[in-house]
């Protein structure tokens, strides 16, 4: 696996991060407003988008979690999120 981060990978990760942020922030809001149907609709829509983009990212660039099926142990290959050059 190529461990150098391409522009496409970077853009895809930016989208994943934005969606993950949105879904997380909606979760906090829904914790205290569980009956807000507008927020629920957003939750449904954005978490579905997030799931699809994560799937695509992991197919192309390696696992985002240890629960993703792997044929080679790519988990340890790319820089970690806290490192320079990590995502």
């Amino acid at each position, binding site marked *: 696996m190529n461990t150098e981060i391409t522009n496409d990978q970077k853009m895809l990760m930016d989208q994943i991060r934005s969606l993950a942020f949105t879904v*997380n922030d909606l979760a*906090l*809001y829904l*914790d205290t407003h569980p009956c807000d149907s507008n927020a629920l609709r957003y939750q449904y829509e954005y978490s579905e988008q997030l799931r699809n983009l994560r799937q695509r990212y992991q197919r192309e660039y390696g696992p985002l979690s240890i629960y993703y099926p792997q044929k080679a142990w790519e988990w340890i290959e790319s820089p970690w999120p806290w490192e*320079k050059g990590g*995502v």
Partner: protein
Amino acid sequence: MWTYDRHLQYPVNIKTPNPTLAKVIISQYGGPDGELGASLRYLSQRFGMPDKKSKAILNDIGTEELAHLEMVGALVHQLTDGVSVQEMEKAGLGAYYTDHGFGVYPQAAAGVPWNAATIAVKGDPIADLTEDLAAEQKARATYEKLINLCKDDPDVVNVLRYLREREIVHFQRFGEALNGVQDKLAQKRFHMGKNK
């Protein structure tokens, strides 16, 4: 349980190492109002909560704080990455280097190790949620002081501003949870401990 997502909640890309900034930012890693204390405070208090909303919000904000702990750790790590021992010493980190090298140790800016005495778990939902409101404000104020100290590095300030804004959102959510708990406790024949 928890699972690890292999990305930061908000990106940290420091172009210029600067141990002087790391020395103060580390307070939000292991200082009195830092992210380690925040996560442990909320994740411990959740066991004593009486209703659905307060259990959920403590669980989920406590989890987000772990992601913030990682971001602050990334800031400290990248600000000291590749820096010489002499530069560490010049930045006032000679004592830190002696005990921790280039590792990231949970301590306050002045070097005091993280202490569980900086958090409270009263087992009383009103007391605990009220503490959480104050904790978010103290963290917000700390980030503002850090922004003042780091204003020459936009890569750092950007991350600090993001973290500051999250404190404000958390404060709002804790206020809503507190209102919910107060309403519940005001109901007739409600007894703590008998709640399912």
